[in-house]
């Protein structure tokens, strides 16, 4: 179960040359700036662009030199940045559209009826019951996008492609949709390729990361590992940081804080309501981590942890460097000035203390 994609495509001023080997499960984020080719790559996978190359999905041949399965024969779901609902059909009609065609000639019940095998659960999952009889132009942007996601899911896709589904939404609408996407990831067993230029969405949703630049995949691998790579954070800029899993082990009512345990230590975080024992994702940005040679208790910073310097790399600005540290089995990134790095002598192998100013619990 995996996805092998190799595409070459040349347009005036743009070349896509991507070679990807993606896991057949979980969320793969394709991350990069606008114009890096991530949407074109997704369109090639869907067959909406015809790039030269090969595509195998779960051992099925979708494309090579001799074959090109047209889009409507590829068992995929596609969520466009603009929802692209059919304006002449109600929400119900939009949902029925793909479901009926994917079911083939077999007559199907109405999408909302319980006779249809998976219609009702998807409508419930995305909270669409109250919207079914409305026309698309009576929906908010967030609602339209939820309908578009459900419409794609109802074709029973073997691969779900999402092209920046949140990019055209404001912050509040994003927060409205993100929990639905997390439920999708956790409750459905459909591999997802999620194109985004927003590092926070990627950190929250992805299990696997592909970083694109100039039409090429410059890095790919499991999320935590890839994010902690020193040769990439330069491209992430302010968003450089580490993401790893942790477990809630204490909730302190007096201070409204929670204690989480990860492979290498414990952290205090703001209590977000996550239940005891719950697995959570923790994100620590490189700019929120500082380094000291000894333990300082006379500070407002709660999270002080011993760590080992692994490596460092140059940053965009010549005054700063990025330091990769290891705490137990977990990698962390810190951005410090070059001057401090020299003063503290942060050579690889050195034992230091890290002070973490902010920890975000995501998902």
């Amino acid at each position, binding site marked *: 179960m995996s996805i092998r994609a190799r595409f070459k495509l040349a347009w005036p001023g743009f070349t896509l040359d991507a070679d990807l080997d993606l896991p057949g499960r979980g969320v793969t984020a394709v991350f990069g700036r606008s114009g890096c080719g991530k949407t074109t790559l997704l369109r090639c996978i869907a067959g909406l662009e015809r790039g030269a190359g090969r595509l195998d999905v779960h051992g099925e041949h979708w494309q090579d030199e001799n074959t090109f399965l047209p*889009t409507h024969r590829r068992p995929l779901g596609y969520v466009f940045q*603009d929802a692209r609902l059919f304006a002449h059909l109600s929400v119900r009609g939009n949902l029925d559209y793909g479901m009926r065609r994917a079911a083939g000639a077999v007559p199907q019940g109405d999408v909302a009826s319980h006779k249809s095998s998976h219609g009702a659960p998807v409508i419930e999952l995305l909270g669409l019951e109250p919207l079914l009889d409305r026309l698309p132009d009576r929906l908010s942007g967030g609602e339209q996008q939820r309908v578009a996601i459900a419409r794609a899911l109802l074709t029973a896709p073997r691969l779900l492609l999402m092209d920046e589904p949140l990019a055209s939404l404001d912050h509040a609408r994003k927060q409205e949709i993100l929990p639905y996407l997390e439920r999708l990831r956790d409750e459905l067993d459909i591999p997802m390729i999620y194109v985004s230029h927003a590092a926070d969405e990627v950190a929250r949703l992805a299990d696997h990361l592909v970083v694109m630049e100039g039409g090429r995949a410059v890095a790919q691998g499991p999320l935590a590992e890839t994010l902690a790579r020193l040769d990439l954070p330069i491209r992430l800029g302010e968003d450089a940081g580490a993401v790893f899993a942790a477990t809630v082990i204490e909730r302190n009512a007096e201070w409204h804080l929670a204690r989480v345990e990860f492979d290498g230590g414990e952290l205090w975080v703001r209590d977000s309501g996550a239940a005891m024992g719950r697995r959570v994702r923790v994100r620590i940005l490189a700019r929120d981590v500082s380094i000291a040679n000894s333990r300082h208790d006379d500070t407002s910073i709660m999270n002080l942890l011993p760590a080992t310097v692994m490596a460092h790399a140059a940053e965009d600005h010549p005054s700063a460097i990025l330091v990769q540290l290891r705490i137990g089995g977990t990698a962390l990134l810190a951005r410090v000035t070059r001057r401090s790095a020299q003063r503290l002598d942060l050579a690889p192998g050195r034992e230091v203390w890290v002070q973490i100013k902010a920890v975000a619990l995501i998902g």
Partner: protein
Amino acid sequence: MPSLPNFAADLGAIWLTLKLATVTTALLLLIGTPIAWWLARTRSWWKGPVGAVVALPIVLPPTVIGFYLLLVMGPEGAVGRFTEWAGIGLLPFTFWGLVVASVFYSMPFVVQPIQNAFEAIGDRPLEAAATLRASPLDAFFSVALPLAKPGFITASILGFAHTVGEFGVVLMIGGNIPDKTRVVSVLIYDHVEALEYAQAHWLAGGMVAFSFLVLLALYTLNPSGRKGTASR
């Protein structure tokens, strides 16, 4: 008091006019839709020339179109030879000759609104349909046609009204044969020539009222800004 109008001749002309306009509009929707689809979506070099040919009747005097159609469909013309060979006979001065001429003459008024509607729809809804397992033909019927409905309404009304109103082409191709090729516009001309102003008034006034109602229907059914586009 003017004499009572000769209603029989008038009714015959009205019936013939409506029949001609209905047949022409129906044929134009069948022929014009594929042309409009092609013009809206092609990137071919031919788009310009074909679009220009379709639009020619807008700028040409009807007599010019009528003259050439008469030549082409006449006994020496290519189409005339074909129709004689096929056993249909010659088309000029017949009802079907008028239909052929009207199809050419009203073509731009049907093709252009449909083409504009298809262009406004663009690729996006069709790509969405393809990702939902719709073949291109399926997507055309289930997405493009319904979304282009306002364009089709405009096209039908304009094509019909324009055929009702044609005069020069009819005279060139069909002449003035009662119940065969004498349409309302030609009959009005006859009445005026014969100084039968009362009868001319009946028909001319009727045409004014008809045209007003058609345009009223067009602007009420199809308010601008509700062109067929997918919701974004």
